[in-house]
């Protein structure tokens, strides 16, 4: 068992995340129909295309360069809220990764925490506001716990995905305070937030990618 993800490992984990999100595009649009304008699946689909384009176009073997390219690419999509939010997440990750050539669980927790912080600069959402933050914060917490416990990247990501899914599930109870769903007020209660759902799918995809790498 190798410790952590090298350049190729990180790329393949991200590609697995993209594939998993893409498999849910229709469901994400349906969720967004209920509380928003029905395009979150399209937006996340575009974000995932951009993510892979960033990886494809990277001509070095530097993780930092790849992540910077991914961040720029994701940020550039024309997709409403999703572009800036996912773009900021990737920017925070890219800016905090330094010159690492391998990402272990500790570094993984660090860069995702930096990504979360960068996202929160523009998001202003807190847990319970029915946004993607409801999935992202518990996922980052889970990564930190796993890092402290010395767990493998695959195990850490599996736990992060579990936490994100639980967080997404909980958004059903909340009233939306951000995005288009906000205008629905109490009518938003009962619906699961599309952004939290896609965030959970992103972590689940990463976890599966990491697991299949460890097992191969």
């Amino acid at each position, binding site marked *: 068992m190798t410790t952590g993800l090298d350049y190729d490992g990180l790329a393949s984990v991200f590609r697995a995340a993209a594939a998993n999100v893409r498999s849910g595009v229709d469901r994400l649009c349906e969720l967004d129909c209920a509380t928003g304008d029905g395009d979150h699946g399209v937006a996340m689909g575009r974000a995932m295309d951009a993510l892979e384009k960033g990886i494809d176009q990277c001509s070095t073997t530097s993780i930092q360069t790849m992540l910077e390219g991914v961040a720029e690419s994701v940020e*550039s999509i*024309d997709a409403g*809220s999703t572009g*800036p939010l996912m*773009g900021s997440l990737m920017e925070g990750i890219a800016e905090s990764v330094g010159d690492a050539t391998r990402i272990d669980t500790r570094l993984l927790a660090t860069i995702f925490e930096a990504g979360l912080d960068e996202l929160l600069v523009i*998001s202003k959402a807190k847990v319970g506001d029915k946004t993607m933050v409801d999935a992202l914060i518990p996922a980052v917490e889970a990564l930190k716990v796993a890092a402290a416990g010395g767990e493998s990247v695959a195990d850490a990501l599996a736990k992060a995905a579990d936490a994100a899914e639980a967080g997404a599930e909980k958004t059903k109870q909340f009233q939306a305070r951000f995005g*288009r769903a906000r205008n*629905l007020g109490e009518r938003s209660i009962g619906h699961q937030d599309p952004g939290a759902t896609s965030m959970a799918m992103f972590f689940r995809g990463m976890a599966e990618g990491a697991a299949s790498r460890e097992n191969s």
Partner: protein
Amino acid sequence: MPMKKFINAPENLTVELLEGFAEAYKKQVKLEGKTVVRATPKSDDKVALVTLGGAGHEPALSGCVGQGSLDASVVGDIFAAPGAPAVVAALEATKRDAGTLLIILNHAGDVLSGEKAFNKAVKAGINVQKILTHEDISAGKDAPLEDRRGLVGCVVLYKIAGAAAEAGKSLDEVVAIAERFNENMRTLIVGAVPATHPANGASLGELADDEMEVGMGQHGEGGGGVMKLASADETARIMLDKILNTMEVNSGDKLFVMINGCGATTLMEQCIVLRAVKNLLEAKGIELVRSMVGEFLTVQEMGGFQMCVAKMDDELIALFDAPCDTPAYTVK
């Protein structure tokens, strides 16, 4: 029912629309990537005006680019804000000592992209200030900022701020004028027939055959009050009352009123509504000092209209009257 729109592949909608738009209005605008800029740029000693937003609302927002109004409109995709990098690029391109005003409409995506771009531009040393339009009063007068969406009033704000910039005012002065108009204006939307999303045929909102919604969001997000369809006079009265309730207007005051068709509501109807507003104001001793009627910011073929009301002073009136030359509105 299948969508009855004359389009090609949905994924090319925005690009094809922009190409046709630039061709149709080439005297006034040209295309740089997906950003619409003036055909003849303003001189460098005047403040530049930049905005951003999704497509599908034609002629807005790009229809306001031209002499006496916007310098650049950064276009996203149908109903979707552009990413921040394109906005930063537009701010770089219009960069000048006189400074740039970035005008953001209060919609989630626009605000996220706009703020992000603004922060990057400031970091890059660009002399830029920003303003957020948020005149929707459907959520009530004292609703939190997040609930007051930016609606068609931006079109008038662009024009007034544009005239101030054209007159050679400083960035601070342009911002002050734009902020004054921004605080003065109020908008309410009534929807009767939902639009169809042009990329996927989805219906944006739901209304029974005998219903309308006062305070419907720009894309049918809802949040207003659904009621029985009313006559033009009655609808005008309901909306004007709601708007005036959020303003301090006294007999002798001068009001600007815009009736903006959302798409399928005819100019005939818009004129009939304006007539009703004029009569209602007259009865209160309030002067309808200027008006605009027509389709400036549409939501595809949505049935309904936006009523935008603003208290005017002499300076705002003079700026409103100043010449401009844009696809959506020309003043000789």
